[in-house]
Every structure is written in structure tokens, then in C-alpha cells.
């Protein structure tokens, strides 16, 4: 295969664009997709300070790299989830990336600072590990962004992640989730702005970006991911994509362009019922936010006894 732009030998094919690229042109392609995503969805202004949620995986490290190359002032945030050797190792990848480039990496440790880890916490709270993990990460990312006065939290959710989440949301017609599934969520009382600059790039492209640019990332899968619903959706979507390249993009961008707006009233309703968590002040639709409830069930503490 030849590079679509310069005709030299290609190293990666991107079927949904019916294209293949050499290393330089592929980097250009990734930079361009991030620039367009930021522009099209009005995610960030050039002077804004960004906090990148880094897990040590391919997507978040590639995102950090791409945002820096695009000229943003971007610091990293690593959350230690206490998932055994997997967490130790993913933390090392995040730290190595930051150190080798002289970047600021903020660290939050769930077991040390909040007294529970994802495996035991999810079990105690009878939640699926990824659900307990996801809500903890969202809470801690937001908290760190507000504490550090960042303008936005950027996460490495890519086209495949978002298409899989959309599939899950549509299969259950989760109106609230559909209302909130968008590449940019503006800041509001108690919430930092959230952006997903990789929505136009697939996870295969992100892995290729890391390999081609010498970014070392954790390749091993999180041990808690097995049986995760989204993995199943990704498999189905990849089979679809194999038969009809571009299917994932059409599904996801069609939603953003034509359907998302239809759930706007649900989002408004939800926002009106928000109040500060009695324990930590984070906005919630209940008296106590989901993270604090998880912490209570995981650690047995009673609200009011921790700071």
C-alpha cells in the first residue's frame, strides 16, 4: 500500500477513510483530526489550561502528546485505582511519559486517599467493577480540575469508545445518558468542562500513533474489563465495520449531528434537580453523590467522619 498523501510506502491503513499513510502523513492525519474535533465542537480556546486524564494506556498518552503538539498547556492527572499489578504498571507508564518530557503529572490514589480500591469497593457496593471505576474516575477528575482551577478535563475517549457507549445507551434508550453523551460538556456549577478531542480517531489509530511515535503504554488489558458490556459492543461494531467501512463513524456522527439535540430537554430537567452533595459538595441529584455513597459502602465509614 502507498501513502495517500505522499505515495511513499504506507505503514498503517485506515479503512474508514479508505486511506493508508506513511508515518509523517499519519501523524498529520491524527493532528488534523484532533484539531477538527476541537474546532467543530468548540472544545477549547488556545489559552485554556487543560487537565488530561492519563491512565497509562494508549489513548490518554497519545491525547496528551497531541494536545501538547497542538500548543495547549496540558498537565496530566493519574488516578491510582488499586487494581493490583495492573495499576502499578499503568502508573509507571504515566510517570515515565511525564518524566521523559518534563511534564506535570498530578496523582490521586484511591486506596490511600479514599480508603478503598476498585476490586473490593465494587464488590462491597455490588456494582460492576467498570461502573464503580467509571464513576470514581469521573468524580476525581472533576474534583482535581476544580481544585487546580483548570479550564477543562480532557479524556482519551476515542471513536470506538464513544460508538460502543452509544450502542449501549441506544439499546436501553437511556435518555439521560444520551443527553449527556457529547464530545464537549460545558462547565456548570460544580462541574469543570469535559472534552473528548479523540472522537474522530479510532482506537486502532491511537495504538498506531503510540507505536510510531515511540510512546510506551500499557498493552495488557485491565483484569476487571473481562465481560465488560462495552467490549462486547466493540466486537459487534468491529464486525460491522469490517463489512461496511465507515459504519462506526456514521453511527456516532449521525447521533451528534442529528439526534443528540433531541434529548436536550432531558439534560435541562436533570440539571434543575442538581444540588451539592452533603458530604463533598459535588453536584448530585441525590442528597449524597454516587462517589460518596460508593465510598461509604466500600469502607463502612459513616458520612461526616472523613474530611
Amino acid at each position: 500500500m502507498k501513502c495517500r498523501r505522499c505515495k511513499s510506502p504506507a505503514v498503517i491503513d485506515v479503512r474508514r477513510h479508505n486511506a493508508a499513510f506513511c508515518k509523517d502523513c499519519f501523524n498529520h492525519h491524527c493532528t488534523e483530526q484532533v484539531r477538527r474535533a476541537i474546532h467543530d465542537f468548540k472544545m477549547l480556546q488556545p489559552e485554556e489550561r487543560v487537565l488530561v486524564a492519563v491512565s497509562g494506556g494508549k489513548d490518554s498518552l497519545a491525547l496528551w502528546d497531541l494536545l501538547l503538539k497542538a500548543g495547549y498547556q496540558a498537565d496530566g492527572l493519574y488516578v491510582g485505582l488499586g487494581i493490583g499489578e495492573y495499576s502499578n504498571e499503568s502508573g509507571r507508564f504515566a510517570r515515565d511519559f511525564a518524566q521523559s518530557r518534563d511534564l506535570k503529572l498530578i496523582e490521586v490514589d484511591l486506596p490511600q486517599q479514599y480508603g478503598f480500591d476498585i476490586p473490593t469497593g465494587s464488590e462491597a457496593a455490588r456494582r460492576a467493577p467498570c461502573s464503580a471505576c467509571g464513576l470514581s474516575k469521573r468524580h476525581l477528575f472533576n474534583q482535581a480540575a476544580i481544585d487546580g482551577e483548570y479550564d477543562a478535563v480532557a479524556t482519551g475517549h476515542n471513536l470506538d469508545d464513544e460508538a460502543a457507549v452509544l450502542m449501549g445507551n441506544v439499546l436501553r434508550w437511556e435518555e439521560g445518558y444520551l443527553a449527556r453523551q457529547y464530545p464537549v460538556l460545558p462547565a456548570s456549577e460544580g462541574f469543570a468542562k469535559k472534552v473528548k478531542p479523540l472522537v474522530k480517531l479510532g482506537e486502532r489509530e491511537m495504538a498506531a500513533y503510540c507505536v510510531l511515535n515511540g510512546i510506551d503504554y500499557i498493552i495488557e488489558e485491565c483484569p476487571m474489563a473481562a465481560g465488560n458490556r462495552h467490549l462486547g459492543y466493540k466486537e459487534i461494531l468491529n464486525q460491522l465495520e469490517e463489512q461496511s467501512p465507515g459504519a462506526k463513524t456514521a453511527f456516532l456522527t449521525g447521533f451528534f449531528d442529528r439526534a443528540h439535540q433531541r434529548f436536550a430537554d432531558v439534560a435541562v430537567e436533570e440539571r434543575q434537580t442538581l444540588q451539592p452533595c452533603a458530604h463533598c459538595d459535588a453536584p448530585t441529584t441525590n442528597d449524597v453523590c454516587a462517589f460518596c455513597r460508593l465510598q461509604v459502602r466500600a469502607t463502612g465509614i459513616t458520612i461526616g467522619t472523613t474530611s
Partner: protein
Amino acid sequence: MNVLLRNPRREIQMPGPTSVSKLLKQLNIVPESVLVICNDELVTRDAQLRDEDSIEIRPVVSGGA
């Protein structure tokens, strides 16, 4: 050909020469879900693989929230 697979990490022997597409088909792997690295270089689907090459098939699909 020595082929490295991940999750879990294991190595298998496959007969070469062949192409990336054929190898993936033989192993029943959806091309969209992996990268193929031949002697430390990323290669496209049509790339020819020689019997003496060292291949890594790296999954790119990650789970989670």
C-alpha cells in the same frame, strides 16, 4: 514465523511466507481489532511476511468506562 499474541501474552509458530491479511484470517482475528508489527515496524494488510520474520499481533481494543 514466530508470532507474539497478547492478552494473555503467548507465542505461536505459523508457516510463512504469507500476507498480513491471510495470517489474520487463519487466526480468525478481525483486522480492525489489531495492529500487526513485523520486526518492530508497523505493517499494512497487504504486507508480505517471510518465514524468518518476527511478528507481533497487538490488540487495540480496550474495555472500561
